């Protein structure tokens, strides 16, 4: 493979990985991987969930020790054993999962881990300067726990960029940014990279991002380098095929990958909804019909009010109904109350006012687990926070919300748990060496799948899915969409919380728009146009 990349002319590449191998017990995470990053180049790294992308990058950053292989920086062999050495060599990374300390402020988080004296004013100024430069505005004095996921992601990026890395690794940096936000970011990043001669490795599952923002692209499959070429010479479908090893339908799923043209999504997507679903099971027949029948709302939210600890209004008399068999999308710009609603429906907090009814019966929200008991399945937005216990096994995580079913009077029924876990691992294609492996050792996308598997398999009456495709690879997104439609077809009321217009248009039959904690309007997907939605998002009635 390496011969078509070998360049005899020009300076030594900024970074070169040669024959990197890493094995975890029986799992070969990386298998003799070669990777070259030239100066001024953005190198896309693709691969299925569990292909070994993060592991390879952790080797580069000194977080994981490779079993074999070598790293060359500007043509000279280097040893990277700790993140500090990596930093000295000008290597920086934004990790797949947040690594911010929540009670600290933005500037404190940015300064964290830097040697030398810490000066508040310089760092604050830096944060603002970097933010202005790359279009990542964030208040340096804000406390991180108050920030939305998108803002946190910006802080991570600023933290890495401020250290002025010569080679920057971005591991799914945009999964919580909207397509528009990430497009803006990459445009700036690209020009900056080219002008300053930096190298960037970009890991992403959003093919649009890869095709738009990278110069060359490499695909990992099961730890091996499966494909490598210049981005200009390939296409999204080709990349998807190289990744999965088969053809992937990129129709509606294209939404989550950012492949759908965004000028007029309604027009563009109608044919997709009408019949272009390919291998995907048939769409629920006319879900709108059931939505009109009064009294059948499987999930009804009435007058929900929540005030934040600082007195800020998070939810403001929020009303929303989802009927059985219908997919309703809650669409809006990130940070307008979606996270609060997600927490509320996960049973993590009780509202100040208002009620939640499931199947017509009110649920007492201050009893933990009451919502789950009533049949509400939740795929939380931040899976690490409330979705999983990283230090427990895959099997334990798969049954965690339904312990009574898997235990006798006193003791857990291990055999039954294993059987259930093995079935789910099989059904949801979770890649793990065994169901006893700690969840922490799974790849990011496979951790997501564990949550999806658990919540979908609990036969919920209502399924709340917040950003369900974040972190999933192409194949898994395809699968996810099919499952959501399947769930709706079998009578589950699905509430899809999403910031992606295309995803919303592709999946939902009705779209509720949230702005400043209020529902500003509910539209049938047929009546929805970007203009009308845009007005609602801005808080005006359409």
């Amino acid at each position, binding site marked *: 493979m390496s*011969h078509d990349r070998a360049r005899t002319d020009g300076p030594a590449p900024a970074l070169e990985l040669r024959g990197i191998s890493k094995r975890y017990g029986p799992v070969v995470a990386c298998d003799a991987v070669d990777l070259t990053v030239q100066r001024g180049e953005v190198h896309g790294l693709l691969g299925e969930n569990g292909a070994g992308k993060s592991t390879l990058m952790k080797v580069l950053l000194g977080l994981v020790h490779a079993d074999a292989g070598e790293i060359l920086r500007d043509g000279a062999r280097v040893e990277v054993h700790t993140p500090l*050495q990596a930093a000295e060599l000008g290597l920086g990374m934004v990790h797949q999962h947040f690594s911010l300390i929540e009670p600290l402020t933005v500037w404190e988080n940015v300064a964290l881990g830097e040697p030398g004296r810490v000066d508040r004013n310089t760092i604050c100024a830096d944060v603002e300067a970097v933010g202005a430069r790359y279009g990542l505005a964030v208040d340096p004095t804000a406390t991180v726990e108050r920030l939305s996921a998108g803002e946190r992601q910006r802080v991570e990026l600023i933290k890495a960029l401020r250290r002025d890395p010569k080679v920057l690794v971005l591991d799914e940096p945009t999964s919580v940014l909207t397509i528009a936000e990430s497009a803006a970011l990459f445009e700036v990043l690209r020009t900056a990279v080219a002008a300053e001669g930096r190298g960037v490795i970009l890991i992403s599952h959003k093919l649009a991002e890869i095709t738009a923002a990278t110069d060359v692209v490499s695909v990992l499959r099961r730890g091996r380098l499966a494909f490598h070429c210049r981005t200009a010479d390939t296409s999204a479908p080709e990349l998807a095929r190289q990744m999965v090893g088969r053809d992937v339908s990129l129709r509606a799923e294209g939404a989550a990958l950012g492949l759908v043209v965004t000028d007029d999504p309604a027009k563009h997507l109608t044919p997709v909804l009408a019949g272009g679903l390919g291998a995907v099971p048939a769409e629920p027949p006319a879900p709108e019909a059931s939505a009109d029948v009064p009294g059948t709302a499987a999930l009804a939210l009435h007058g929900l009010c929540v005030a934040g600890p600082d007195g800020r209004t998070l939810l403001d008399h929020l009303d929303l109904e989802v009927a059985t068999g219908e997919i309703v999308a809650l669409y809006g710009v990130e940070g307008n109350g979606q996270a609060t609603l997600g927490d509320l429906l996960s049973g993590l907090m009780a509202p100040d006012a208002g009620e939640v009814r499931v199947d017509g019966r009110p649920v007492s929200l201050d009893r933990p687990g009451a919502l789950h008991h009533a049949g509400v399945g939740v795929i939380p937005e931040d899976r690490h926070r409330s979705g*999983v*216990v990283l230090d427990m096994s895959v099997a334990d995580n798969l049954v965690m919300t339904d312990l009574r079913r898997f235990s006798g009077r006193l003791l857990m029924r291990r055999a039954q748990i294993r059987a259930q876990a*093995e079935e789910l*691992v099989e059904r949801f294609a979770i890649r793990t060496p065994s169901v006893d492996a700690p969840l922490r050792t799974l790849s990011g996308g496979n951790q997501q799948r564990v949550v999806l598997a658990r919540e979908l398999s609990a036969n919920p009456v209502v399924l709340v899915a917040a950003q369900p495709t974040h972190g999933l690879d192409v194949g898994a997104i395809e699968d996810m969409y099919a499952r959501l439609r399947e769930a709706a077809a079998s009578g589950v009321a699905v509430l899809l919380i999403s910031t992606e217009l295309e995803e919303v248009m592709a999946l939902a039959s009705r779209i509720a728009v949230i702005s400043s904690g209020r529902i500003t309007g509910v539209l049938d997907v047929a009546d929805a146009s970007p203009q009308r939605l845009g007005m609602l998002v801005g808080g005006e009635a359409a």
Partner: protein
Amino acid sequence: MTTVSGPAGTPRRPLAGYIVGSVGLRRPSADAWRTAGITVLCVAVAVGLAALLVTFADGSPVEVVDALFTGSVADTAGWSQTLVNAAPLLLVALGACIANRAGVFNIGQEGQLLIGAMVGCFVALRLQGPGWIVITVALVAAAFGGGAWSGISAAMYYTRGTNVVVTTLLLTFIAAQVVQFAVNSPSLLQEEGMGSGPARPQSDAVPDYLRLASFGQYPDLTIGVGVIVAVVATVVLAVLLARSRWGFRLTMLGLNPMAARHAGVRASRLGGSALVLSGAFAGLAGGVILLGTVFRLQPAISNNFGWDGLLVALVARSRPGLALPVAVLFGALRSGSSYLAATGVPDYLVDVVQALLVLAFVVPPVLSTLWARRLRNRAPVADTPARPTAAAPAKEEVQV
């Protein structure tokens, strides 16, 4: 290659497997060997230092080492004493394991143990009835006493959010005052005095028929009821933590409270009861000391068993199965030290010697971790800057 879900995973483990597993005997890694090596070294250094100290105090180092050994594990009499000491340590440690698992850090065992001993003493001296009933009631009451004491901390934490570490610690000092008061008030627990001299600040002795039985006769090995209770509790707790729904929920709460809540765990109930339970174990330890060895309530009855028991749990990384051998080890240090005191070495020196030995067993895991990290950081320093421009070592490039 990587998607294996079949029976290739771990086979079903029988009960014994769980216990062995929770003791940590599964895979002695390189780290384990390093830690063992460091431990041997540390103990040697501690013994050396102790010997040195004793020499300065005009004692004989050889006799010190000999006394430490004879008093703890040299013969059945030593072992008997070691086990007597190990029982309350183990009970306290079990309680600490429960609280730590749930993510609430109780450090007030010393006070909970005192209160337990006091309540147990009250019951034993006031309640009339057949011996075994009174003993049982007294032990249960001791557990209740300790549980109630830590329950105060639980209530403060889950209603007002007051830090558990702070409240359990401060309540220890209050507990000491309460016991002082009790043994100084004739209307409460102060001894009647036998007509000879004034009453001292301690309770009457518990009558003979209320003392915990032990099996075996000196000089054979004797095993007290306290030891049996502690070992049974260890096994039960190890199984419950590893296999019960309660243990599962407790672990979940400790590792990720948010996810636990999502899964229906009410932190105030489960975490609060874990804290109460850990106090109850400390209280029970107080009862066992009272009825098993000291027989009367004295302000010094706790004798650091609470602190040391907490230490046992920490060394055992909150695993009951591992706490058992660690408690025996700490028990041996205690019996060795008291034997040493009996040979005429001054008390303060005995304390120093004991502290040195405890350190020798607590420190090695930490040193081992630091060392491992050091090794990793050090290696490349000698390596990296040495080849600045030796571009691309002549290794073949084509590797695929």
